Structure formats: C-alpha cells, structure tokens
C-alpha cells in the first residue's frame, strides 16, 4: 500500500522541519498543512496508508473525528500526535515530541511501519507457469483462449496475469509483449515482433 505523510501544524518552522527530517529516510509524498480544515482539499485520497502528524494543540476528540471522517473511509489511517515536550508524551500511544533528536522520530515511524508490514510478495523471477501465460498474452490470446490452451480455469489465468504484472511492474499488454520478446519467451523467428506489440 502506498504511503503518504500528512503534517498538520500551525507553525511553518515545525512543518518544514519535520518534513526535512522524515524525507531523509522516507521517500513518500508529503502534504504540509497549517490546520485540520485544510485537509478538506485532500478528501479524494484513496487506498493509501496515511500517517498524520498532528500538532498536540490541534489534537482533540473533535479534530480526530474530523480527520477520521475525511480520510479513514478509503484509507488506512494512523494519527501520530506531535508534542512540544517529551514530558507530555504517554508511553501508551505512539507519539513524537519536538525536543527529541531526529533519529528518535525516524525510529518511531519505522517501528510503526514494521508493525504494519504486510507479507511481501517476493519479486523474484516469474514461475514457469507464469511464463507460459505471459507468452500466450504476448501472442495476443484472450484469457478464455489461454485457459483452454493451458487446461486451466479463466480464474487461474486472471490470477497469473495479476501476479505477472505485479512482479514485472508492467501493466499494458504491449508492454508485457515487449518483455516477453526481450526475454525470448516467444519464438519470434517466424513472427514479426512489431506485429505483436
């Protein structure tokens, strides 16, 4: 799941400071806002893991509800309160404070991600079966035709195709075809490769 950091703090010096610290370790998109109200312009966010750093002075039951209403429906949401002093922090919640050193802030966020990390699909090479399916896709066959040729169900073909796209980072059929030709998954001696792309 793609991640986004949203930093909400009334003071620019804090917003930009936290941004500068985090972007050294995390290469996600950042959104910097001076109030919870400004979040309204971001209500279109979907399917993301959102980490909201919220200034403790803005942190109330009310604002939390507001943030949840705007973002939690279509996203995974984690709010991290930002205190001005570590004395205010409670050991029972994930939080950061402005008197912590930068590495401690980075550590807190890393720990949060490790906790949430889903089982990663291995990005290793394609399986033999996936190569078979990919070759058929490159030759221009439909899912139904591929299923018939390989004696598998359409459902299995679709699931192979999804895995292929995820593993390779190539989505379009013509892109997959280029990959198949580059890796000699299809015999192009008797076919003009250009006619397949």
């Amino acid at each position, binding site marked *: 799941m793609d991640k986004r950091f949203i930093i909400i703090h009334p003071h620019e010096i804090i917003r930009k400071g936290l941004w500068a610290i985090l972007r050294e370790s995390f290469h996600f998109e950042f*959104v910097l806002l001076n109030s919870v109200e400004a979040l309204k312009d971001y209500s*279109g966010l979907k399917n993301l893991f959102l980490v909201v750093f919220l200034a403790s002075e803005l942190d109330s039951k009310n604002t939390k509800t507001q943030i949840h209403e705007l973002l939690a429906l279509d996203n995974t949401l984690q709010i991290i309160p930002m205190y001005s002093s570590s004395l205010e922090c409670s050991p029972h919640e994930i939080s950061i404070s402005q008197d912590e050193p930068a590495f401690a802030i980075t550590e807190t966020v890393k720990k949060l991600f490790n906790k949430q990390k889903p089982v990663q699909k291995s990005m290793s090479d394609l399986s033999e079966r996936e190569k078979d399916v990919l070759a058929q896709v490159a030759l221009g066959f439909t899912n139904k035709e591929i299923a018939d040729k390989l004696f598998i169900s359409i459902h299995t073909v679709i699931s192979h195709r999804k895995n292929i796209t995820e593993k*390779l980072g190539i*989505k*379009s059929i013509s892109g997959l075809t280029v990959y198949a030709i*580059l890796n000699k998954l299809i015999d192009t001696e008797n076919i003009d*490769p250009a006619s397949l792309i």
Partner: protein
Amino acid sequence: MDHFKADDKVAKLIHANHYLLPVINRFGIRLGFKDKTVAQVCTEKNIDSNFFLAIINTYTNEDYFPEQDLLKFSPELLIDYLRKTHRYYFEYFFPEVEHRLNKVLNSCQGNCGDLQLINTFYQKYKVELTKHLEEEENRVFPYILALTGCLRTGGQMPEQFSNYYIQSREPEHTMVDQKIYDLKNILIKYLEANYDDNLCNTFLFAIFQFERDLVDHARIEDKILVPKVVEIEKMVRHG
C-alpha cells in the same frame, strides 16, 4: 509541499518545481519574472489567478484537489488550457522525444533488435495517444462547448450531439498512462544497456516529464472537467 499562493513569487514556483515551466508557458507566462508574484503576473496577462493556482498546485502535488474551488471555473477555461497542452504534445513533445530516441538508436552497439522494440512500442503508443487526443479535439471539446453554450442561451443541443453524453466517450486515459509508465520501466529494468548512457538518460528525462504532464492532464479531465460536464448535462438535457 505547501501550496503555492497568489503572493508567492513566480520565480519561487519554478525553483520549487521546474516541471512547471511548460505549464506556465501555456498561460502565456514566459521567463524573466523578476520579483513578480503570481497575482501580479496573472493581472498583467489577464489570467484568472484562482484557476492558475489550481492548475499549478494540482500539477505539483497529485493529492491536492480543491474540488469546490476548481468547479467554479468555466469549462471553456479548462478546454483552452487542455488544447494548449495538446498543442505542446504535438508541436514540441513528440518531435523532441523522437529526436532523442533516434540518437539513442544511432548510438547502439552490437545487437540493436531489442532497442528497436522500444522504438516500435513508442511508435504504436504515439498513434494510440494521437487518436485519443484527436477524439477529444474533434468530438469531446466541441460537445462541451455546445453544451455550455446551451446552458448560457437556453437553446437546443445541435443535432450531431443528440445521442452523445460525456460518459459515452472512451475511457482510455488509464491505458494511455500505463503505457508510458511501461515504456519507462522496461528501459530502466529490463533492457540491456548497449547504447550511449547520456543519450538514453536524455531520452528518459523527456519521458519522465511527459508522464507527469500526461497524468496531470488526465486528472484534470477526469476529476474536474467530466464532473463539471455531467452537472451541466443534468441542467441542460434533463432540467
């Protein structure tokens, strides 16, 4: 990133995001800003500064989406901007990318069949994208202009559009975006580097810039223009 605001200097915009250069050119804004702010330049050039800010902010931050504000603009403004974007693709981007790609091809040492595949992929992609852009120019935009005309005058829709609705156009944007991403990724991950590195980098820079432009272009159409048109359709055709 923080949003750009009307009192930001235009020079600051470009220092923060140089990809914006062709975007501001589409508004007729050219280099040599001195210390002028967005508001000043917009007044000089007679540009709606809210519209300008919405465009550059969505371009810079893909999550930024001030829908209520953006929906206030007339579709004519958006179409004018989109047409200029199309012209940029045809007059500058395609020739430039082909020029760069040819240089990479010419620098190839040894077996160049693989690199030729990239060329084929690009050529077919260009045909597809051109078709998509022409469909917008020849059918979608005239339809929207006729529709907004009807809204203003209370007249009837012209005969040629009697069965046309904005949702009936082909939803090709995702495919068009995907292919440019694939092109990039195949070069980065899977192609053996038997060409001049600097020439290939120059080609890739152009593709990165274009992908950004295209995704933004699609976002403006799908998220701003289309909902706006659907709204007008309700008023004009069912109201």
